[in-house]
């Protein structure tokens, strides 16, 4: 399925490509901005609903619901501008296999944008990379079929899984993002994974500080995408 089928984004079929098959960064960024300009226009009339579909990292296992990064991001975005709502679609223990079914459940919530943060449990359980790719791809295509904007969140497995597996796993997200021309948060746990003081004792789940950092990263990511939308700027 092409991105253009969503009807709200321009076609990428005539996009000039570099010899290695990658879309030039400037052109891609321009396209992203134009795509989100459409989203911003929509949001001028109503609240933009951002669904973050993920696992225990998103759910906020081990921290208060209000301290999990979706709630923090929600607070930051609302402070910045009106008309944004972030829905926490995290489910502890879930793998990418549940992504599609869970998205169907969220159909009722009518999200405008979905941040797909699926797969970290797949990695930790050593699920075949191809299987994870297939599941994330299915979730992505479902979102596009529903005209929901998609942002992929890149995930990694710890280096102790070996370079081969870890390398193959972390390539899933940029490859899918490139294939379907969707924006990507390079690594959801940037500045958090493996950082002392950012994680709980299990070494996997971020603590309050870790969630704060993720929310800040995402806020910086979403800010330009949503900046075209009307809404009251936050005081100060």
């Amino acid at each position, binding site marked *: 399925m092409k991105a253009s089928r969503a009807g709200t984004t321009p076609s990428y079929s005539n996009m000039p490509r570099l010899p290695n098959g990658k879309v030039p960064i400037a052109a891609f960024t321009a396209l992203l901005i134009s795509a989100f300009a459409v989203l911003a226009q929509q949001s001028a009339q109503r609240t933009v609903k951002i669904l973050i579909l993920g696992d225990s990292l998103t759910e906020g296992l*081990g921290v208060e619901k209000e301290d999990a990064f979706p709630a923090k991001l929600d607070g930051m975005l609302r402070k910045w501008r009106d008309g944004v709502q972030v829905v926490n679609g995290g489910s502890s223990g879930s793998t990418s296999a549940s992504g599609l079914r869970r998205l169907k459940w969220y159909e009722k919530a009518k999200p405008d944008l979905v941040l797909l943060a699926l797969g970290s449990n797949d990695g930790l359980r050593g699920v075949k990379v191809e299987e994870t790719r297939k599941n994330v791809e299915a979730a992505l295509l479902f979102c596009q079929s529903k005209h929901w904007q998609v942002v992929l969140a890149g995930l990694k497995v710890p280096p102790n*899984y070996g370079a081969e597996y870890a390398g193959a796993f972390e390539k899933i997200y940029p490859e899918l993002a490139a294939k379907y021309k969707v924006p990507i948060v390079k690594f959801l746990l940037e500045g958090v994974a493996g950082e002392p003081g950012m994680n709980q*004792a299990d070494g996997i789940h971020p603590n309050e500080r870790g969630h704060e950092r993720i929310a800040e990263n995402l806020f910086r990511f979403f800010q330009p995408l949503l900046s075209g939308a009307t809404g009251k700027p936050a005081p100060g």
Partner: protein
Amino acid sequence: MPMPLFLRLLKHKRGAWISFVSIYALGLSVFLVVNGLAKNFQEEIRVKSKELLEADLRVHARRPFTAAEEAHISRLVPAASKSAEVWGFLSMLRMGPAGQALPGRGPDTASSLGVTPETEAGPGAAPTGAIGAARAPAVRAQAADKAMAASRLVQVKAISPGYPLVGGFTFAGASRGGWFGRMEDFRSGEILVPRELLAAMKARVGDTVSLGAKSFVIKDEYKTRPGGNFDFWEMGSRVYIPLADMPATGLDRKGSRIFRYRYFMLPEAIDPGTLRDSLDAALSDPEVDVSVYTDSGSDLSRSFHMVTAFLKMLSLSAFLLSAVGAAFFFRHHLVGERKTVAVLTTLGAARRRIVGIYVAQNLFLSTLAAVSGMALARLWSIGLPLLLHKLYNIDIPSNLPLSTFFIGLGLAVCTSLLFGFTGFAGLGRIPPATLIKPLETAPLGVLPRIALFLAQGAFFYALAMADSRSWLLSALSVGAMGGAFLLLGALGWSAFKVLWMLRSRMGYALRIVLGSIRWGREKSLLAFAALGFVAFTSCLVPQLQDLILNEISVPKGRVIPQLFLFDIQEEQLQGLQALIKSRGQTLAQPSPMVRARLEKVNGVPFKREEAGKPAGGGNRKAVTLEERNRQQFRNRGFNLSYRDSMSDAETLIAGKWWKGRAAEGAVPEISMEKDFAKRLKIRLGDLLAFDVQGVEVEGKVTSLRQVRWASFQPNFFVLFQPGALEEAPKSFLGTIKQIPPDQAEDIQNRVSEAFPNVTILNLKDVIGKTVETLGKLTWLVRFLSGFALLIGLAILWLVVDALVSENQRTILLLRALGEPRSRLARLFLAHYAGFCLMAGLTGYFLSLAAAWIINLVVWQVPWIPDLGIFLVCAGASLFVGVLCSLYAAYRGAGQPLRGLLSLTRA
């Protein structure tokens, strides 16, 4: 040499002293065997717990220890301790040498490996080997097959020399090629793997595999391994490599999740618990965890604690029961000796000498009983394990510690003397006039008797304290027994008083019975209390046993699962069930699991301060499982499920279970696990609102359940009535029962091929060890409870028989007066069967109260009286009473009437 007087006086009371010795010896033997077994089991559990932890003490962190932490460990752990170091982490084990592509691997096989061609062409990948390029098709097919299974998630344990400190490996090929399974021969570049991994990867001993950048040769296949503790995240097969090889793997990098474990075996004199506390205080970072072996296997510890407490109470009860029985006979004997004492007094014997004679008798008999009891205990301890091994293939430790025998001897003599003291003290007060006129009142006053009773209670309390080391348990045991004895005496006395007042309205036979009881009221009261006490103990034991078994045994008809499958998606369920069925097995109890958050209770946003803030404030580390659960619960996340009915591992303890599905638009019902509800302060009738992944779902708590967690079934804290959550995103979990290793491997491989997201945990090691121990404990509880019950019935019989013998004079007198045998039988039936039934019922009702208190206070579990036990106990008491009465009537009827003269003379 002339026989001492105390023995000569016993010569004509053969029946009495045989009863005394046999009852006492039997009870003592049970006490000794149970105590010995409990000690052995305690030791076995101690060893097993150490095996589970792999040490006396373990310090671990998910990162390298800091220099300060290293210094604390060195300072606090005694230098004489043995130690070993292990690093544990998950990684992908790959067939073939490191840095080399798999033989025969081409583009066709790459995708099945789950690795994209781009990945393969990465900088780390070496060119395809020479073998691969020129493979024949058949070889390529084989290679493809191999490649499919070429990379697996494994749990790596990098071990230092000296590992394991406790327990050990058993290997399949330990006698091959100079390798005898000695860990000191395990060298760099070698890896130890389990059988299922070899099968899954289609590898053999001697093949080369790689972890990160290092190649390893499979040294051997291990059949059993040290340890048993299971961490949810440790989901691959365990493989062992030398710790020294870690740098070469290149897997320990920034961001790697590698746990560092330090194991210590401490010198005997060091208390691991105290050392744990010191280390905990010094290593304050929550990322560092200190455990001792007593923490490991908490389910097992809880079950064992309950069983030990039960067995100790049981053995003490059996002993007390026999002591009461024996005391009954001795007191009975002393009452019968009053005339002899009067004769001796008349002949000028000093009171001290008279008392001395009977104390000597008591000492002699209790020593004889102790020796017989010890011999019997020895026989039990040898015979029982043999019998059990033969019948059920269960091995129980058989040796009885020598200390047990000394304890037995001292205990038997002291208890007997103490119980006989009231009788001895009274002997000195028997006047010579007793020769012509029986004593109307007991020779000892009420106050000295109460004082003696309290002294006996104190003695048993001290005994219970020494045994259980719990003041609460001791107070409850002794209080329940002493209270029961007193209450029985009081109730028996009151019942007799009422019946005596009503005697004019009774028939001839009953009046004779009442007269007979009144004639020997001291003996009758003693007999009533003894009978009631026997019934009390015999009823209490099965009631407590029921509860213990509920806690530790697998529900009837249920087999312990071996494979746990989770993350089964709804659309995969049918296919998975079909696959498992095609392998001759069934996916048992597929249970839906829905993730949700508790938002509101009765419309008020749910906030639970203690769940959110660690006790004591700050970043205090969660030490207990409870605290860890609380931390996990900080985001109020729940795994919900729904079911039509309760599983057999659940018992409804409050409210009612729902009928059918929730009606459209109606508020669905919720059932909560009782401890969980208590922790969250949620009560029956509360309205809970859950955020089920963005959608609010309400439910009303209509029942509380007790869950038998040791049943190893999929159980949930919160269950919804069907009809509310079916549409919610969910996954399923299920189990597969214990199956042979080959079949388990086959199913694991097929499931992971067909449903890669489904995770299968093979818990054979963990569950196997726990189940084995619980199985032994279950058997022990059953057998010893039955044994105690049999002793109770034997004592019941002997006490009634003694009473009957006492009344032979009445039987003969009635016969001399022309009473027909049939009426005699009815008379005795009314007397003894009624006596037994009354005492039995009183004992039963008292046991209900005791069971309720013990369950509530000691084990903190709900308790429901069992009608079956009531029927069995009341029936058994009545049966013994009827049997004894009939036997008495038969025996009395058969005796010649001239016996009346000889009895009168005596």
